[in-house]
């Protein structure tokens, strides 16, 4: 199955400046935690903006199909083929 991942608020710097990634999974049942584990293998280890001490850095909003993952089961949320997962860093500029 295919999951679309996109990055906002400058997080693309951790993924070779790509603002969108398509992740392919062999399994038919995957959870958010699988997506995050996959991203750990793709993230530039020099950048601390995405993973900070192995955890998702504070200040990142995670959305599943444009809705806050807190409205679902966060890491445990089940994903469907073609779902869109967004990681948005909070911005501070004004």
């Amino acid at each position, binding site marked *: 199955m295919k999951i679309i991942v996109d990055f906002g608020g400058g997080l693309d710097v951790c993924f070779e400046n790509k603002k969108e990634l398509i992740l392919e999974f062999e399994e038919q049942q995957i959870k958010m935690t699988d997506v995050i584990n996959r991203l750990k293998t793709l993230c530039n280890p020099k950048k601390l903006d995405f993973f900070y001490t192995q955890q998702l850095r504070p200040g990142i909003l995670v959305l599943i199909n*444009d809705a806050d993952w807190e409205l679902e089961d966060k890491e445990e949320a089940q994903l469907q083929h073609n779902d869109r997962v967004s990681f948005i860093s909070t911005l501070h*500029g004004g």
Partner: protein
Amino acid sequence: MKEYIEYLQSVLKQNKIEFQQEEEFLQNKVNQISNEFGYDHINRYKRQMILSEIGLIGQKQIHQAKVLIVGAGGIGAPAIYYLAGAGVGTIGLVDGDSVDVSNLHRQIIHNNDRQGMNKCESAKLQIKQFNPLVNVITHNHNLSSTNAIEIFKNYDVILDATDNPATRYLINDTAIYLNKPLVSGSSVGWEGQITVYGMSGPCYRCLFPQCPKTVQNCNEAGVFGVMPGLIGLIDALQAIKIIIGQQNLSQKMILIDGLRDIYKVVKLRGQQKDCIACQKLININEYDYSTFAKTICSSSVPYRGGYKEIEWKDFLQIQRNDQVVLLDVRPSSQYNIIKLDGFINLPYSQIDLFQIEQNKDKVIYVMCRRGNNSRLACEFLKDKIHNIYNIIGGIDLYAKLYDPKMPLL
């Protein structure tokens, strides 16, 4: 038939009474309004007053509203302009900063002649010319945990148009503590985000209970002026809708990517039960916001040894020859605007591409903007290259010491 006529007469009588009551009510309203809201106001605002959602009552609500804008910068500037245009009776401004020429590509309420002037005062001058019916109150200093409650309590709606996490948490906590709706917008690069905190939805701490310890782009950040402009306009829209009781962005967030033309509204979590701001567990006066919001970018990188450091005055004495490599590790976007003679560019983000074999016997001098990334670059190279120097203070210090007119990026 007679009964029917009597019935009609009674209906007419009732209608007349109701009509008289309505007329009295309206006359009353008109009298009230003409005291402080007269023809001048109606003439100025009539194009929006004829909207059914605003009308006379809504415009009076806007007139009586007091809106506080924290930050008269890229987001604040257009927000102040449009709120004043829409007829917000009292606009409060908080900003301790003064106008710099590099602000003007986005902070359109200021102008060339007012460089060096406090931003609140500059904005006030502009608004006085633009709409004299608006009362502007200036707080020409930065917001702090000791003055925030005193200032906020006099206003109905708060706008966060600031640029750093510590102030954002302070504004959030104070607005939530005082039950004031908070319109919060931010913008970096080509992106923008805006939402409404408080009301019955979540607050900033509900979304981000822990402050991010790294803020990307903090050194390299730039901003395209239109982006904070867009966010400021949506800020003004939200503030007006809160005042007239329309639905707003509470528990929703608008995300804008101006470069890719993506404009979307996303759904946020509700108010969190364990949020210390919503539970009013924070003693704002005593809370240490600067420690809470300390980020890696804002603190400097310490010297941890393993390479040498050199000051500008000594560096300028060195003999340059083909055994010396001068490395500028700033982002290319900065290097391409201003560079120093002899330096080649390799951004710190690509430091692993440095040609070790070719350079391992040479003397390498590393420079960046302020001397932090150059230390990180030296740390990365120190085990591979024997003779490596960090130039203390970066190009900003060079400019200060030797070329004061050089623009600091």
